[in-house]
């Protein structure tokens, strides 16, 4: 039998140190934005009961969840999504509703994916959930946080597509059809499959004005003002009109955030209609085939855990965001390095540690090791580890080997420290 001990499974991967450094910076940037808008970071368990996810009309299919059975025979699921646990948490831990909750998270999520599809089975997701605020201002704020993050991470050429689940739902109220037929209509609209939609609707017994509106849905995308105007014109009932007005409000608020240029509208976004209840959105980056970020309003979710809270939020895939940044050469190369390696003898060891601590307190990255005879080996190692300078502390004085400049200098301890002070600019900035 083939031994797998040296292999990692498909869909998961090790993270290289330089890659981790980069990822860490992006995470830092994202966290900063979340925090600055008042979203408080929380964490939910890595695995939970299958029951938590199974009864819910969520965005993740049951077959996509990693399941296992614990010692008591209970079925567990590796966190396939963070929104549902947050909804549970919000509903459970705050029995009495007093205001709103703003949660942020950064967590690994796990999804079963088709073999050889190239999809990750474990990836890092960041997101926010705004619970307890039913106003369009909350929708707009959540979108605005998403825009701000993409901007701050240096992604250029991105856009946000807004949709409105309530518009499609309002339209479906006009047709008395079985669920599977409505689902098929939804699927064809989602695919912008106008020709099949036409053929599918033709024999159905529904009013022609309803058919006309359904057939227009796949084309209801583009510049916000145009789409909103048309959508209003072809609305068939008060629900649809209200839905458009709400969307229009969200757009107006986003204008005041100064984000008008990033916004487009697509009323043909009709995925996960059992889950979303209002404004939904996706963030796209140019030349990247998948949405970077997606979210929307889901007012009915927490009710299933015993407390009805209006809610909106989004999730973004950090690994994919890194791919986009890499593709556009936007990753400020974060290569791990060390400022100083101090080599000591038994005699100078104590002084060496003291020096190391002094340097560390000034913000430098300092390693130390016992001085061997083989300086050449140490230099090779330093090159490999990206160590900038080796300090030999053998006697009273310091011998400083600069790897980058390929030069050796002798200095007294006092000179060395004084030099550091005066060269404030060389201060480490990690």
């Amino acid at each position, binding site marked *: 039998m083939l031994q797998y001990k040296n292999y990692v499974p498909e869909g998961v991967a090790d993270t290289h140190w330089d890659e981790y450094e980069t990822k860490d910076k992006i995470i830092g940037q994202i966290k900063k934005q979340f925090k600055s808008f008042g979203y408080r970071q929380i964490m939910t368990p890595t695995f939970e009961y299958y029951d938590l996810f199974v009864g819910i009309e969520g965005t993740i299919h049951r077959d996509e969840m990693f399941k296992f059975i614990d010692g008591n025979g209970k079925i567990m699921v590796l966190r396939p999504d963070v929104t549902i646990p947050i909804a549970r948490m919000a509903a459970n831990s705050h029995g009495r509703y007093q205001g709103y909750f703003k949660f942020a998270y950064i967590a690994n999520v796990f999804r079963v994916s088709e073999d050889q599809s190239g999809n990750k089975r474990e990836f890092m997701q960041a997101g926010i959930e705004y619970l307890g605020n039913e106003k369009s201002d909350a929708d707009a704020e959540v979108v605005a946080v998403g825009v701000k993050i993409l901007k701050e991470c240096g992604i250029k*050429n991105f*856009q946000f597509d807004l949709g409105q689940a309530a518009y499609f739902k309002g339209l479906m109220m006009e047709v008395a059809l079985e669920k599977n037929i409505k689902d098929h209509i939804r699927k064809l609209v989602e695919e*912008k499959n106008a020709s099949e939609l036409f053929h599918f609707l033709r024999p159905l017994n529904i009013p022609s004005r309803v058919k006309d509106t359904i057939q227009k849905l796949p084309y209801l*995308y*583009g510049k916000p003002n145009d789409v909103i105007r048309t959508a209003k014109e072809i609305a068939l009932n008060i629900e649809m009109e209200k839905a458009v007005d709400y969307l229009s409000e969200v757009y107006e608020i986003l204008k005041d955030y100064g984000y008008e240029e990033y916004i487009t509208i*697509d009323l043909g976004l009709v995925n996960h209609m059992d889950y979303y209840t209002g404004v939904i959105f996706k963030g*796209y980056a*140019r030349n990247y*085939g998948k*949405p970077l970020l997606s979210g929307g309003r889901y007012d009915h979710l927490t009710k299933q855990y015993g407390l009805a809270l209006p809610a909106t939020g989004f999730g973004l895939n950090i690994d994919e965001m890194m791919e986009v940044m890499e593709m556009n050469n936007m990753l400020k190369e974060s290569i791990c390095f060390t400022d100083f390696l101090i080599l000591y003898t038994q005699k100078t060891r104590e002084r060496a540690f003291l020096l190391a601590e002094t340097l560390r307190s000034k913000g430098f990255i300092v390693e130390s090791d016992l001085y061997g005879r083989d300086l050449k080996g140490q230099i090779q190692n330093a090159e490999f580890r990206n160590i900038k300078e080796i300090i030999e502390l053998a006697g009273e004085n310091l011998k400083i080997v600069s790897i980058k400049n390929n030069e050796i200098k002798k200095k007294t301890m006092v000179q060395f420290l004084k030099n550091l002070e005066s060269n404030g600019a060389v201060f480490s900035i990690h």
Partner: protein
Amino acid sequence: MDFVNIALAKGRLAENTLKMLTLQGITFPDYHPGSRKLIYENELQKIRIIFVKPSDVAIYVEKGAADLGVLGKDILMENEANLYEVMDLGFGQCKFVVAALRDYVDQPGKKIRVATKFPNVSRKYFHQLGRPIEVIKLNGSVELAPIIGLSDVIVDIVETGKTLQENGLIIISPICRVSARLVANKVSFKTKMSHISRIIEGLRQNAD
């Protein structure tokens, strides 16, 4: 302006697509059907065509490696992909059918053994009828299966029905029509909207 990549599968669908593109003035001068090159560019109009296996067109488009693609509805039905199916190009017409030997008698309630290149399409069709089936996935010469007793029926695409006839099979029920479809990556469709809609509009005019 960014390039728009169009994934095509060598063969008739590609020939027809290229003909339609030529009608709207999009040409690839160094292309000829016998060439082994896989990528051709129209530098001026920023359009690139890439040749891939028919069954791979959908994945190229879904993942965004190509912005547009042309493939048969049969393949789209078999491998459901997350993309926009923006246009029925009208050519490549054929149909999905269930076929069996002339003397085949369907016994209600009995599990049907189905030989096919399209297990998902077969399963979906028979499940809708409420009939349990056993699928035998084959990669070609499906017509053989009922003759040598490997299966009761086959599910396949037919154009003229000649192959079926010559092998003594008859169509026992049609499933649906299929034809060539233009598909688009959901993100490119938005981020390269003006460029892509110009191409689609051109194709639409020539399809009529």
